[in-house]
């Protein structure tokens, strides 16, 4: 009995110190100086634009990575080809690599002395220090999530249903749309939730490639940095609070979806 209480105490204490207390602090500190500075920060056009930039990047990255994740999952589980292990490694790589490394890679490709930079800027396309680089960075860091959720689910499901449908005359598209997709529905949704959260929270890669032009190439996370460096603690906490609230909503979504897909 004592041991049980001790273990419980250790676990809860650990969570309190590392996780819960800091989170509580954000909520507290945000409103410490009253509602006015919070409102000012959140209604600042540059802040609103920063959230827009973050959402645009996510709106592009999430669908692309979802389609990629589903196709990838199907290829890895259902098909035979050489280099499967390598493909697996490359999908998982964005999880293991530091975001600043990704930012550096984009810098090397699209900078003024980069591989594609001169050609692109010569033809009027600004990639680095503009929205496209932010989008590319966001896509890179969120590649793995849907794939990693879909793959184990597909493995567990097997493909008997699709085979049965094939003998009954269903073509490839019908089999995919009516059997495969619905059966991995929850895995995909769960993966989309994780992907979205990752896109919204990206900082390291974007910090390198964005150029931090206010009202133009700042993301919500960079905005927090901006407020921190300009004596606007209330602003930094306000934006952090919005991001933290979104995170909590993501958590709720994750918790309700996970039981359904039997994680």
């Amino acid at each position: 009995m004592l041991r049980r209480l001790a273990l419980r105490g250790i676990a809860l204490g650990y969570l309190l110190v590392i996780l819960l207390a800091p989170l509580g602090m954000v909520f507290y500190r945000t409103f410490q100086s009253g509602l006015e500075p919070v409102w000012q920060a959140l209604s600042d056009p540059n802040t609103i634009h920063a959230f827009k930039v973050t959402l645009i990047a996510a709106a592009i990255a999430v669908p692309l990575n979802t389609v990629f994740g589903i196709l990838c999952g199907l290829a890895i589980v259902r098909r035979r080809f050489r280099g499967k292990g390598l493909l697996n490694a490359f999908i998982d790589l964005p999880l293991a690599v530091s975001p600043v490394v990704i930012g550096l890679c984009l810098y090397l490709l699209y900078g003024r002395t980069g591989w594609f930079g001169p050609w692109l800027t010569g033809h009027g396309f600004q990639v680095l220090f503009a929205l496209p680089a932010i989008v590319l960075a966001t896509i890179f860091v969120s590649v793995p999530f849907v794939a990693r959720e879909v793959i184990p689910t597909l493995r567990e499901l097997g493909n008997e249903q699709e085979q049965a449908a094939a003998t009954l005359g269903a073509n490839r598209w019908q089999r995919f749309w009516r059997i495969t997709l619905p059966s991995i529905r929850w895995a995909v949704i769960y993966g989309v939730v994780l992907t979205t959260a990752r896109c919204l929270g990206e900082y390291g890669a974007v910090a390198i490639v964005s150029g931090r032009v206010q009202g133009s190439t700042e993301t919500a996370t960079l905005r927090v940095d901006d407020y921190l460096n300009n004596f606007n603690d209330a602003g930094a906490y306000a934006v952090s609070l919005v991001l933290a609230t979104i995170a909590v909503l993501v958590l709720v979504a994750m918790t309700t979806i996970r039981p359904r897909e039997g994680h």
Partner: protein
Amino acid sequence: MRRFLFPALIITAVLVPAGAAQARRAGTNLNLVAFSTPKAVMGKLIASFQSKPAGQGVTFSQSYGPSGSQAKAIVAGQPADIAFLSNGLDINTIANAGLVSKNWANGPQDGIAANSVVAFVVRPGNPLHIHSWSDLVKPGVKVVTPDPFPSGGAKWNVLAAYGQARKSGMSNKKAIAWVTKLFKNVVAQPTSASAAASAFFGGEGDVLITYESEAYTAFAAGKQGKLIVPKPTMLIQLPMVALKSAPPAAAAFIKFIHSPVQQKIFARNGYRPVIKSVLKDPSLATWKHKYNTGPTFRIRDKLFGGWNKANTVWFDPAHGRMLQIEQAVGGPTS
């Protein structure tokens, strides 16, 4: 055919926002790339410019960051029409890349928009009684100054520290040793002057070495502290230039910077005007008094010989004196 669908999708997804962003700029948009601290005063200068005929319909995209990094970003392709940096060295970096005229310093007021001085900020009431440079090297004093490699403000701080040591009679060797002693007291070297000020006002350290203008900006934002301008100190000259590729509005903006209207805005916001006569305005009497703080030395003095020479001696990434000092104290060497 299907093989090209995905790549086409990606390329579209990436380049369409690029094109859209460019199309949105209907009137003239000027890209301002500046050092880390003048955000507040730039807001006012821009508004003032936009109210004049030359500024009608001109919008500004603004980016703030450590002066050295901003210069390198411009060289790496960051869109820029106006560069407002904290020291001539960083303008030379852009000039050497061919983006700005190499004769930028021959322009009106030597290309300088405004001045400041190297100063200290201490806690309210000055509990450690810091009044001069020598108080900074006392044991136990915790100093905050930015990392001199990306930050322009930090470079000014280092040269000011060395300069005052020489002016007080120390030999070259002793002065370098003094600067090393100072850096042994440094507890934080954030990447930019504004990050350093943030760290200090967030509670870190006992004294911040920064621009006098940054101190005033912080106080105006409600931060608590006391400004100490040591004697002697170094004059900080802040250059603003238009890039070669910039639209005509950029040159108009810079010309306007030297007008009495803009210089008075600088004066009222903690920056020392380059057109000193504007301080005669009776409404600026308090500021005139505040800026009357004692002797200053300059980057062009024989002691330093200008930015290029000072940079080679002090901030060269392979052989500069700062490299050795940072290695001696465990500080950043880049």
